[in-house]
């Protein structure tokens, strides 16, 4: 990738030398950040987008609403622990939850490839509906398109969600303070490993199930119990590492985590070791990181662990005043920088 002299400095394209979209632009890593920062955000610039949160918070007639959207593209469509329907409901519910919003309504747009079995479509929609209903919401509007065979991966789903923030807390990156405790709601990397293992051709078997789950009940429980939450972020592509790097940058703080405290299930650790992947970069679909005042951290941790979705919750680090960096401390007392993955996580050669 030599740089192209026809592109002047400051020109938003090409991101890192690419004139065409490459898969890594969607991988949750640094290339994706560059695409967002240099092309997508400038093109759509407005104050709500500038909140840089998973959901935009909108004041409307004295009511605070949270609004979010997400597109779901997963291969395979059915994986241990879920399917694209459950994923499409939970992912959007989680984006609302981490804004502190109680979910109200969802929409769903289906892009179906010619030849996709209707029985599979029914299974997926049953999952989507079940997850929406379990969260006390419903899919109240939608759209359906069919594309020619070979023009889609079976099925893509885009969902949007709207929720209400009916409490005075302002949860988001701007509320992160030095000395805040950093918690995670559970062990990391299950979704990434479950999906990789289910993919054709990887040739390894694992009992690891995706963590795909709706976190809104857990968040509502913390808020109802009076816990002060400075910031929440659900962990998706790019994993814990991407979430911490983005939040440190957006809040202008340093974050320090303790390697030994980060919960990773043995099966996930084993698969990561074999494939040369870092569990901190692996995708999750039912986990979040929480920033809470230090004096309340133990109480919040106990409350998380008392909930079925938070049994493996852990206190993993602390916020320091600083310049927006993330580092982790090993069991040997040494430090390493935690950074965004560059693009897609690519299994190594040997």
């Amino acid at each position, binding site marked *: 990738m030599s740089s192209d002299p026809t592109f002047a400095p400051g020109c938003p394209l090409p991101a890192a*030398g690419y004139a065409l979209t*490459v898969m890594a632009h969607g991988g949750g890593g640094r290339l994706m950040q560059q695409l967002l920062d240099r092309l997508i955000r400038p093109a759509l610039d407005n104050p709500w987008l500038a909140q840089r949160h998973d959901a935009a918070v909108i004041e409307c007639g004295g009511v605070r609403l949270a609004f979010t959207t997400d597109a779901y593209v997963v291969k395979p469509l059915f994986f241990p622990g879920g399917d694209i329907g459950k994923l499409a409901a939970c992912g959007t519910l989680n984006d609302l939850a981490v804004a502190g919003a109680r979910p109200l309504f969802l929409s769903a747009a289906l892009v179906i490839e010619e030849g996709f079995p209707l029985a599979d479509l029914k299974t997926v929609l049953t999952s989507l509906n079940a997850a929406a209903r379990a969260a006390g919401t419903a899919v109240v509007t939608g759209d359906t398109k069919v594309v020619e065979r070979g023009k889609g991966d079976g099925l893509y789903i885009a969902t949007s969600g709207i929720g209400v923030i009916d409490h005075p807390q302002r949860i988001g990156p701007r509320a992160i303070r030095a000395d805040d405790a950093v918690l995670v709601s559970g062990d990391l990397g299950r979704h990434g490993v479950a999906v990789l293992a289910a993919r054709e*051709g990887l040739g390894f078997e694992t009992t690891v199930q995706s963590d795909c789950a709706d976190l809104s009940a857990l968040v509502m429980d913390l808020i109802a119990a009076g816990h002060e939450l400075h910031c929440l972020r659900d962990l998706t592509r790019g994993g814990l590492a991407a979430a911490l790097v983005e939040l440190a940058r957006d809040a202008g703080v340093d974050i320090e985590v303790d390697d030994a405290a980060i919960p990773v299930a043995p*099966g996930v650790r084993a698969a990561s070791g074999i494939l040369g992947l870092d569990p901190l970069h692996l995708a999750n679909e039912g986990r979040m990181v929480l920033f809470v005042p230090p004096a309340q951290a133990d109480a919040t941790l106990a409350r998380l662990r008392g909930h079925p979705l938070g049994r493996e919750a852990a206190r993993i680090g602390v916020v320091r005043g600083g310049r927006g960096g993330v580092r982790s401390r090993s069991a*040997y007392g040494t430090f390493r*920088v935690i950074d965004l993955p560059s693009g897609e996580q690519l299994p190594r050669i040997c």
Partner: protein
Amino acid sequence: MRDLDAYRDADTVRGLAGRIAATVNRPWTLMEVCGGQTHAILGFGLDHLLPPSLSLIHGPGCPVCVTPVAIVDQAVALARRPAVTLCTFGDMLRVPGSEGDLLAARAAGGAVHMVYSPLDALDYARRQPDRQVVFFAVGFETTAPASALAVRQALRLGVDNFTLLVAHVRVPPALETLLAAPGNRVQGLLAAGHVCAVMGYEEYEPVAERFRTPIVVTGFEPVDILSGVLVCVEQLERGEYPVVNAYGRAVTRAGNRTARRLLEEVFRPVDRAWRGMGTIPAGGLELTPGFRRFDAIERFGTSVSPHVEPDRCHSGEVLTGRLDPRACPAFGRECTPEHPLGATMVSSEGACAAYYRYRHVQ
């Protein structure tokens, strides 16, 4: 996985670091050969546990990094042919050739398919009989047996739409080139445990003897690496230069005989250019005459001219341990993982990538 945890145990690691400090009386410079070891050292901060008089420099043991631009260009050119599907390991996709990487070739319409094994590429060829499937065979003696197996199966099954673009390289000739180079600073070598798991370590014995340099077969977990360092400095302090196996749970002196026989049947040594190191006598592998018809270059011809490395990339000096990645004028400035000048910044085993990932503060 209790096993793996034992090789990362904090008390054992601190104990080994203490023994190394107590053993070292003079300054020593060791080279860990393998990029996987480099990443473990930087990721776990093991270099910070060593006494200041003991230096670790990072060797050329990253197959992606040493693959010459000309071969990457051949892969890109093959991927652009309409009838060809190029299969390769994920690591190779982002290595820059002189006109872009394989991801860019795919984005521009080329058929590039990521596989986890050469046998997957062979399966792919059997399922797509109308396409020519080329496996970009990169790697040391560790991965070469799998390529050999794929070719032998292709012969047995009569799969004639499958070829290899062979870029396999051999470690011992590269170590000899390094140790013989003027200004060599390396006093002891930590050999790559997985290469030795296949090849054993008999072939390192004449190298250690000739250059009076101890070579210690070393693994990849923190306890393995520090055990290798300890054995190596013990030999140096004693003035001895044997080959010692500090990775006994995976390596024997003779290695994996089945894999070695397979390698000898399908491949033979050939002089090969290494990126940044020049042509190394017997530094690569090529298909033996009986398997030559599975060679992608034979089948498709070469379509690219030899490429000159850009001056701004100092990967040759990095790969031979003469330059600390952080001292490279391009490091973290014009050369980053998103915009690499050379493969040492791309590969998951490259030394520049390791420093950028674990130590670089923007």
